[in-house]
Structure formats: structure tokens, C-alpha cells
């Protein structure tokens, strides 16, 4: 098997809220205030091959954006390793590390928040390639025009500021900025969530067109299962910091294995389910500050039994290319 483009091995990310001075003083006086630790990502293994689109689905607070940021290199993991083309990112030389970082770019949910409002589109797109020496100063204009055309914007707009564009156009600028440094891998963090349906379809089509033209690889993070189903080759389902199921898209949607995946797919509103009697899963997503022991999903799971409450199930292969972390697969075989 070829070397994956990006691989996460046992990646863990903890966010710690350290004590401030007042709390430290209070502790000296015997108050027993403890640091708050959020385990945002818990020993995640994920492999993304060249040319593949991997969807990462989960509800708010499940750690999917944190994984995206670790992959893109804007956060470093507390534990575990990130491999880029088989090489450890953490042990690369600064020059190599910069090259690797350039090849992985990110597109964010809110384009207005991620574009500098005081920069013209020309500079937003042209600055990074110039700084990194991808184009000479005299070629920048033509280069920016070229990229704007590629994402479906009129090059005459490049003198404008981000606020002069509509939401869909702004998202295209965000895409153009990511493309400007000739990346191989793009992390899309809820990249279409803020757009209207008709504009969302345009941007999704743009992603697919770029994938073919530039042979891009995507990690597509979304809470919108319909969008992920449409784009992704493989889908990872996350719940409270852990991947609970990972499978090729068609298999996953045809035969979801984990009880959480099953519930999630049942809840997704679809065009072809009419006057549907909603049968929700009970309960709320627990706080990541204080996750339940064992399988994180057990308090909401209709099939939970004793071991689920005691020990975390491991992500095991239940069929070729299919991984699932659920005790129901032990002995009872592969059923849904």
C-alpha cells in the first residue's frame, strides 16, 4: 500500500484551563480548585490517502474541528504523531516543516471572519505565494487572475474588499486563498455550513471540480451528513473526542453499525421522508469536561450493557475497510 498523505497516530489533544492567581491563593487556603481539562481528541487514528475525500462527521463539541486544526498544523497534538507522507511533522527541519505546512491548507466556516477586512482581494490571495517565493513580484497579478478564474470569480473584482462580496463569493475567495500556495491537501471545516442552499450547491460543485483539476485531497469536516455523503469516499463518525465508526461512504449509509451512527442517520431529515414520525435518541451530548466512563455513548444508547459502562470499546475492524468501536460486535457478529 502506498504511503498515506496524512496520517494521525494515537493523536490526543487536551485543553487545560490553568488556575489564575486568585484560584492559586484560594488553593493555598485549602479551597481544592482543580484545573479544568477538556480531552477534545482522544487517541484518534486516521489515515487520508492521496486523492481521497474523507468526511468527518459529528455534533458540536465532538472534537472534529480540533482534528482539522491538528491536521492543518495550527494546533499541535498533546500526544501522538502526525505523519505527512510518512514523515513525522514534529521532527522535520524548519524548512521542511514549512514546505509540509504549505501543502496543507484550510478553509473555514465563516469567510468574513477569516478574511482580513482591510486587505484587498488581490493581497489576500497574492500575499502568501509572493512571500513563499512561489511567484515573482511581476507575475503576481497574472497569478491572482488565474486563481480567481479557477474559483469562478471575475478577475476585475480583485481591487475590492471582502465586505463588498456576498457570502458565496467570499467563500470562493477563501478557497482561492487556500489554492494560491498550491496545496495538495485541503481541510474544509464546515466550509458550506453558513451558505444558502443554492449557493452551497455551487460551492460543493466547485470543490469537486477542483478535486479533479488539481488532484486535491480533502478532509471534509461537517455536521451536515447529507453534504458529507455527497462528497466523501470514506466517512469517520466522531462522538465526544473519539472516532466511533469509520467506513466507505456507501457501506456506512447502507449499513450503519454503531448505535450512534444508526441514530444519527435516522435523525437526518431527508427530502424523501415525508411526514415522518421522529423517534429521537434520548438525552443530551455529555459535557466533554466530564465524559461518562467506558463508551462515551452508553448513557444514550438503547443497547448498552455492563461492559459499555466500564471500559472503552476499541476501534476494531468488523469487515474489510470498516472500523467500529462497539461491544455489540463482539460475538454477536456484524449486524445492524
Amino acid at each position, binding site marked *: 500500500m502506498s504511503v498515506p498523505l496524512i496520517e494521525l497516530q494515537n493523536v490526543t489533544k487536551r485543553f487545560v484551563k490553568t488556575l489564575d492567581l486568585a484560584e492559586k491563593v484560594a488553593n493555598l487556603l485549602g479551597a481544592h480548585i482543580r484545573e479544568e481539562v477538556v480531552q477534545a481528541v482522544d487517541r484518534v487514528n486516521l489515515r487520508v490517502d492521496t486523492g481521497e475525500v474523507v468526511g468527518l462527521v459529528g455534533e458540536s463539541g465532538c472534537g472534529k474541528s480540533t482534528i482539522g486544526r491538528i491536521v492543518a498544523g495550527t494546533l499541535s497534538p498533546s500526544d501522538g504523531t502526525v505523519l505527512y507522507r510518512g514523515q513525522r511533522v514534529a521532527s522535520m527541519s524548519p524548512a521542511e516543516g514549512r514546505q509540509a505546512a504549505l501543502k496543507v491548507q484550510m478553509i473555514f466556516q465563516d469567510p468574513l471572519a477569516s478574511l482580513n477586512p482591510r486587505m484587498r482581494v488581490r493581497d489576500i490571495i497574492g500575499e502568501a505565494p509572493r512571500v513563499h517565493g512561489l511567484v515573482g513580484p511581476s507575475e503576481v497579478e497574472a497569478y491572482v487572475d488565474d486563481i480567481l478564474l479557477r474559483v469562478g470569480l471575475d478577475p476585475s473584482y480583485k481591487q475590492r474588499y471582502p465586505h463588498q462580496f456576498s457570502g458565496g463569493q467570499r467563500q470562493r475567495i477563501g478557497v482561492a486563498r487556500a489554492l494560491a500556495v498550491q496545496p495538495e491537501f485541503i481541510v474544509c471545516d464546515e466550509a458550506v455550513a453558513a451558505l444558502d442552499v443554492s449557493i452551497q450547491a455551487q460551492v460543493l460543485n466547485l470543490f469537486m471540480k477542483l478535486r479533479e483539476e488539481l488532484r486535491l485531497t480533502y478532509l471534509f469536516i461537517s455536521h451536515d451528513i447529507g453534504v458529507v455523503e455527497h462528497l466523501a469516499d470514506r466517512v469517520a463518525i466522531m462522538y465526544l473526542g473519539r472516532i466511533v465508526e469509520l467506513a466507505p461512504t456507501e457501506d456506512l*449509509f447502507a449499513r450503519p453499525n454503531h448505535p450512534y451512527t444508526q441514530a444519527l442517520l435516522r435523525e437526518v431529515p431527508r427530502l424523501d421522508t415525508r411526514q415522518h414520525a421522529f*423517534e429521537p435518541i434520548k438525552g443530551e451530548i455529555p459535557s466533554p469536561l466530564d465524559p461518562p466512563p467506558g463508551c462515551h455513548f452508553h448513557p444514550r444508547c438503547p443497547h448498552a450493557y455492563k461492559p459499555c459502562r466500564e471500559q472503552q470499546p476499541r476501534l476494531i475492524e468488523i469487515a474489510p475497510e470498516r472500523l467500529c468501536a462497539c461491544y455489540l460486535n463482539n460475538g454477536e457478529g456484524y449486524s445492524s
Partner: protein
Amino acid sequence: MAEGNSTLAVKDLKTYFFTKAGVVKAVDGVSFNVNQGQVMGLVGESGCGKSVTGFSILGLVDSPGQVINGRILFKGEDLVGLPEPRMQRLRGNRIAMIFQDPMMTLNPVLRIDTQMIEAIRTHEKVSRDQAWRRSRDTLGRIGIPSPEERLKAYPHQFSGGMRQRVSIAIALLHKPDLIIADEPTTALDVTIQGQILYEVQKLCRETSTALIWITHDLTVIAGLADTVCVMYAGKIVESGDVDPVLDEPLHPYTRGLIGSVPSHSRRGQPLPQIPGMTPPLLNLPDGCAFRPRCPRADDACMQMPDITSLLPEREVRCFHPHLQGAS
């Protein structure tokens, strides 16, 4: 549709905003009817006037906006131009609204019980004790565990889904005849959205409350509503029962919207997208507002088409609808 059990009939409603830059026709001649126990979905993209339609019904349009034309018949009583004291007696009592952001509805510095009891006692002469008991029962009915405890909490102590339940419970306190829900589940996670849709669906069936569900999400409408109105640039372009509208859309815009929703059958293929973007309401194109984006537009579309009833129980505003047999 029998007029007898009509809860709300909106006729030719026009709400304009008179701004310095010009007149914004946010709602421009909207008519629809909602019967008792019926769920109507009002669908459209941002800026199409769907929320302003909801605000107009409740008389919540602020200056520079104004309802300049039309009738809003709520159980036969016209709400347009109704004196404010009378409107206040209806609002929150017979007609309730649920907003997208529950923090808009809830006062962050008051406990939930204070807010609920106040809401009850504004409209009814009951003792605090009775009001408290009713608050507790309503919270329980909407699926909030241990309501006695939760009544003592402040809004920030709830999660997003729980907060939205509280605001739905407040809307239900007086068993209203009509609820207007403006994107109430858009900010919520899928499993929590499922829970709330379940509760709402159950309530409408049990209490025969009429519901207007305003959303941009066609898939929610498909699962929840009985009838649907599709809005574009301040006008209803298509309306009818959910099944025929979603299965055989007549208007090119409805067709484009449905095509834009990623679904099973077209996995990996390009989505049939609508070109261009929604026009600014200040500067609408002449004739049909959808003309510049429409694949079927021709010279006839330079005139604004009227909304016509081409099939029974179906209305469409288009010169070139997608009728079976016709091209």
C-alpha cells in the same frame, strides 16, 4: 380547504421598509392560509422575506418597516391596524412565536420560573402557585427532565437544545391557536433537532395548534409539514401540499432548490445548481425576480407573472412551469 377551520388567512400582505437608499419590498403580496392543526412550511433563502412575513403577522415590524397593504385574518379578526392593547392580548397568548436564538426570547438575568410565571400572569388571573404548577407541567411535556429543579435555573445554565425547549414551553403556556416558528432548530445539532421536531409534531397533533415553520431547510419541511410555500424575493412563487410540491415542483426555482440538496441518488455527481445569486431586494430585476437565474426565462418573463392555480390545490407564479407533457 374549508374556510371554517382556518386559523390564519393572509391576503395580499405587503410589508415595505422605507430606507434612505430606497423602498425595500421585503414582503410583496403574500397570501396563504393555515388551518387548525396544520403545519405550514415557509421556505426560502436568506433575504427572501420569510422572517418579515412572520413578524408582520405578530405586528412586530419596526420602523422604517410598515405593513402597507393586505389583511391578516386570525380566526376572522383582521390583525392589520389592530389597536396595540388588543394586539398585546393576542400576542404570546393566542399567537406565539419561537425564534432561532432562544437567548433572544429569554431574559438572561431572570430565573426560568420568574419568566414563565410572568408570562402566564400577564394574560390570565391565576395565583403564583397555579402558574408555577402549569410552568412545571409544560416543561415536563416538552421533555425537560426534573422540571422542578430546572425551573430554578438561569438560561445560561442550559444547553442550546434545552434553552430552545424552554422557549418552546413558554410559547405553549397559553395553548395558543397559532405558533410561528422562525428557524428554531437551525442552530441545533441533528439529534437535538430530531428531539425538538418530535415534540412539536406531537403537540400539533394533540392540541390542533396551527404551526408556521419558517426555514431554509427543505429537508426539515419534508419530514414535518403538511403544506409548503416557497418564497423568492418577497413573493410566494409556489405553494401546495408537501408531497406534490417536492415530488413534482412546477416553478424552476423550487426545482433548482430541490436539486441543490445533496441526496443519495446523485452521490459524487455535480449538483444541478442554480446559477447566480439572490438579487438584492433594493434592486430587483424587472419582471419576474428569478428571470436572470432561470433556465426557462424568455421575453414573456419581463412581466411579473401572477400566481395562478394550475392544478387543484397548487399555485405557481411562472409563465413556464414544469407541467407534465408541456415543455
